[in-house]
């Protein structure tokens, strides 16, 4: 009676011999106190943070995000007993998340201080630098399972490249994160120097939902409700996939690997089917594309699984995974946020042993060279 929608298991899955450890591609660490970050900022920007704070690309006062669904968009059970916001206590993260779920690696995704939405690009760059240093000092240095990403907002390309170079020299970051909602669609050429550097360095380009680019999050304008805005994460991802694809980024940077994080994956089949069909009609408008859009998706793009789609019938999720391809999917939990996915229960459809290995571990291991 209680576990009415527990996922069924395939016989081969139940009989799997070896333990499968999880690579979680979306773990959110939080700043415990501003002082933790300030130590990595020049005095000038510490003062700025205290005096002026964030100046964001949102049109109205009060549209900044929290709470969303629950305080700090967090699981209600994720508040550390020692105080501070969810995700800010490493020991508690180990105890609640890394250890019980047998996480082999967690890829850190920092959202604090609205990193990518700062209107003052110089201040934004100072925050990005500070947070990149803080990720190592407070997380990766203390917990080898946690891997950091280089945060580099792309709207000042010069700052972004400088920060990428600085962090790449340190050599401990597994990904370069850019803003999903920049001033212009992500395929535009002004951003290409960043893509060129990511390709040269062999680091995947991570695009995690969230932030404000100053534009309405939907094509229809600003939504009234959080539930409405939450849907728009998928629209944003679909728009950016189309932009990157059709402007020719994978064609120009054939070794660039792009990861869409926290956008789910249910929207991918229809987006790529439609692009393929239109490509046949509009080929002469985009002669720089040599292949059908879906072929670029299959080679250059990866997608994290959370928030996973839950159709009424399990077989439809099954079809979705087959359409997108188990090769393209990376498990992510979104810990400690309210829409967290538990790797044991999130997939409401049986997976084959091969699919499990790819989605929960193998794809991420290869992509991030872990």
């Amino acid at each position, binding site marked *: 009676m209680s576990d009415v929608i527990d996922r069924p298991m395939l016989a081969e899955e139940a009989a799997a011999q070896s333990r499968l450890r999880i690579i979680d591609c979306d773990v959110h660490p939080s700043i415990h106190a501003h002082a933790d970050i300030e130590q990595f900022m020049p005095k000038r920007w510490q003062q700025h943070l205290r005096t002026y704070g964030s100046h964001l690309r949102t049109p109205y006062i009060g549209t900044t995000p929290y709470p969303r669904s629950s305080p700090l968009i967090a699981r*209600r059970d994720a508040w550390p007993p020692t105080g501070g916001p969810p995700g800010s206590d490493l020991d508690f993260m180990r105890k609640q998340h890394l250890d019980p779920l047998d996480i082999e690696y967690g890829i850190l995704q920092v959202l604090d201080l609205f990193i990518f939405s700062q209107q003052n690009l110089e201040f934004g760059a100072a925050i990005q630098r500070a947070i990149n240093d803080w990720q190592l000092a407070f997380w990766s240095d203390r917990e080898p399972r946690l891997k950091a990403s280089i945060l580099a907002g792309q709207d000042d390309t010069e700052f972004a490249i400088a920060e990428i170079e600085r962090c790449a020299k340190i050599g401990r970051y597994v990904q370069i994160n850019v803003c999903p909602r920049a001033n212009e669609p992500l395929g535009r050429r002004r951003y290409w120097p960043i893509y060129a550097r990511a390709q040269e360095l062999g680091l995947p380009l991570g695009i995690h939902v969230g932030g404000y680019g100053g534009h309405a999050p939907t094509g229809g304008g600003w939504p009234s409700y959080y539930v409405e805005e939450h849907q728009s994460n998928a629209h944003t991802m679909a728009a950016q996939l189309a932009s990157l694809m059709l402007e020719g980024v994978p064609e120009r940077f054939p070794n660039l690997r792009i990861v869409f994080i926290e956008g789910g994956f249910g929207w991918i089949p229809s987006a790529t089917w439609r692009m393929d069909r239109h490509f046949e009609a509009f080929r002469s408008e985009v002669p720089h594309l040599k292949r059908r859009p879906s072929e670029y998706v299959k080679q250059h793009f990866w997608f994290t699984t959370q928030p996973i789609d839950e159709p009424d019938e399990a077989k439809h999720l099954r079809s979705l995974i087959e359409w997108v391809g188990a090769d393209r999917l990376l498990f992510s939990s979104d810990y400690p946020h309210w829409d967290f996915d538990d790797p044991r229960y999130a997939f409401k459809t049986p997976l084959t042993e091969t699919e499990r290995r790819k989605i929960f571990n193998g794809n991420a291991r290869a992509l991030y060279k872990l």
Partner: protein
Amino acid sequence: MTRHIVARTSDIPPGGNKVFGVEGRDIVVFHVNGEFFALLNRCPHEGAPLEKAACVARLTSPEPGVYQRSRVGELLRCPWHGWEFDMRNGQSWFDPKRVKVRSYPVAVESGEELQKGPYVAETFPVHVEDSYVIIET
């Protein structure tokens, strides 16, 4: 049905809850508006601990712009994905036929009554002036 005397009524403050291990299961008992409700401490969706749920009111709207709040504190909002359950019977509001949390009958009896029964001495020291929360599984 086995009766388990799990707590004094005063052990669970109004608006609060407490988890008890009963026959290998974690059962959470809520105290709301003078009543006690017992549920399996696990959301049927992805297994979140319901002891961390928000206890909220039922909010309904017969038409846009008209809102009604009722049964204050009797609805559980799962700590992860916000699914709402009626703590009186474990039913979900969004899909009551398919999705529910296992619920258990709860009784409150005075120590005086309990002392007459067979379940007292081995489980719990009884002070006859108190009342006790009893879960049936």
